[in-house]
């Protein structure tokens, strides 16, 4: 009998304690960001998809060594270059990132010895078409320079 | 006598009671399942209650007798439903059917 009533009593007390906690939380400020109206800045090391880095002349740093292509586990980088007449280094002519297959592991950036690619800070990419995610990074670089 | 003053006439209620009774009898005769019969029996009881209430309102010297009988009928109906349905469930567990004809052998 005592156990019966003490259980009811303790149960009630525990319920009131719980309600006290939520009551306190009720008056605390909100912690969320209302997303489309406010956005957060991405942290410095944020790993977005990759972008090419340009040198002072506005040309990409890339020398078409193909290390990033080989390092990529998912085979989403395809690049091509050609050696113009009289130049020592190869010049990048095509750098395609198939973002649909990219897993953002960062192997490409890590493998690059020439400071040619970096992570972008874009995080809200969305589209209904797959083709929108096949990025031509050279064209994007030119767009940025405009 | 108009359609709109029917509620002040005892005949309306008595005929309604008779109708409910008739529906109940029809149901009991035609239904094959025990539950269907039970539903029909409830209709018969409702017909009886309506009669009691009508007499209570229009012809009885004592204004509560009919009401009290209606209440008693409700109690009996509830008891009947409880017992009847428990029998139905027991029968179902025995015969896997609530068809009245499948359960002719009501022995152990």
């Amino acid at each position, binding site marked *: 009998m005592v156990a019966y009533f003490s*259980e009811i009593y*303790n*149960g*009630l007390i*525990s*319920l009131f*304690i*719980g309600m006290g*906690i*939520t009551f306190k*939380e009720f008056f605390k400020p909100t*912690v969320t960001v209302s997303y489309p109206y406010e956005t957060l800045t991405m*942290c*410095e*090391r*944020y*790993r977005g998809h990759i972008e090419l880095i340009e040198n002072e002349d506005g040309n990409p740093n890339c020398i078409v060594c193909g290390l990033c292509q080989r*390092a*990529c*586990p998912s085979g989403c980088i395809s690049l091509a270059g050609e050696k113009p007449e009289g130049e020592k280094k190869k010049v990048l002519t095509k750098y395609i990132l198939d973002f649909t297959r990219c*897993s*953002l*592991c*960062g*192997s490409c950036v*890590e493998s690059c010895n020439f400071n040619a690619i970096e*992570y972008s800070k874009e995080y809200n990419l969305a589209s209904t078409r797959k083709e929108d995610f096949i990025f031509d990074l050279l064209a994007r670089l030119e767009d940025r320079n405009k | 006598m108009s359609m709109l003053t029917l509620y002040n006439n005892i005949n309306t209620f008595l005929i309604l009671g008779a109708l409910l009774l008739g529906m109940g009898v029809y149901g009991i005769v035609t239904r094959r399942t025990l539950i269907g019969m039970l539903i029909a029996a409830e209709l018969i009881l409702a017909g009886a209650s309506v009669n009691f209430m009508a007499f209570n309102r229009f012809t009885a010297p004592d204004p509560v007798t009919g009401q009290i009988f209606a209440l008693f009928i409700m109690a009996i109906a509830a008891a009947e439903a409880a017992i009847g349905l428990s029998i139905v469930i027991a029968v179902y*567990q025995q015969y*896997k059917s609530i068809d009245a004809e499948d359960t002719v052998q009501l022995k152990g």
Partner: protein
Amino acid sequence: MSSPIQLQPDETFILNVGPQHPATHGVLRVKMEMNGEYIVDAETVIGYIHRMHEKMGEVKTYPQYLMNLSRMDYLGAMGYSHGHVLVVEKAAGIEVPERAEYIRAIMVELNRVASHLFWFGAFVMDLGGFSPLMYALQDREYILDMMEAVTGSRLTYCYFRFGGLYNDIDDDFISAARRFIPRMRKSLKKYHKLVTGNIIFHKRLEGIAPLTKEMCRKYGASSAVARGSGINFDVRKNEPYSVYPEFDFDVPVYHECDSLARYNVRMEEMEQSLRIIEQGLDKLPDGPIMPKKKPKLIKPPAGDYYQAVETARGSFGIRLVSDGTKTPYRLKLRSPTYSNMHLFDEACRGMMIMDALAFMGSLDLVIPEIDR
């Protein structure tokens, strides 16, 4: 509590729980044969998001495979990567600098707290309480922010490298982690008041789904599932690896064998992880995070290597069969939830459906980790 009434096979019906069911936290399907509210028999159907990580391991080179391990378990990715780098380092004989080892331990433990926090919230939500999930997520976000600043990613970190780490931690991280510990301890107190002490919560878990020691052994259960059944088994203590012998921490063990015991074990594990993080931050040595000499191409000698680690979900084993080339010959991933989930079929017989789903929540399932 869950003593079933006498069951009659012809009264049962099949209830298909999943693959899209709110309680299964992903695409898991349980075919339950029910008698009213009671489960007569259950058959778990998995494999809806099977991605054949093991075959990928045979195709990709060792560094290329690093990413896959964080994709296996999106809540406790660090622990799985830890197992992978440890087994490859062991096989290839790569020395790891001490600082890297400490940072790894700190990260794994932080990730464990984050994973347990999410489990806590999701578990209480399985039981119908929604607010604790939000509180747990707030604390978890703090951890994720902290880790994102270091690793650059919020869930699939890919932070460990063979021989070291991808990035060094900075003072911001250390001070944030130091601030986190008291904050988390305060939060844990709040959770205990709000949830653990609650009579409804207690009544729902006490005595539900008892798992005997013997059953755990036959199924190879680990983590809180085993520790809630009175088995003192934690890979960090039983087969110490990395720098775990340096830390002073306890392994919570409960002998009640019920869902409440599993809950209590995980709640206490969070406290122990905080202790490890605290000690790790105190002892953190200076130095490089990558070894000085590291083979350019990782080619472990032929042989058979095994490494078990304690992830947030239990004992994760990784078997590497190498033939001396740059890709593994065979890579077996032994995921802990796979074994824990396997228990469910047998254990839930005779239980009521709501108890069974509470029990499922107490197993801490992450479906991609089961399906691999």
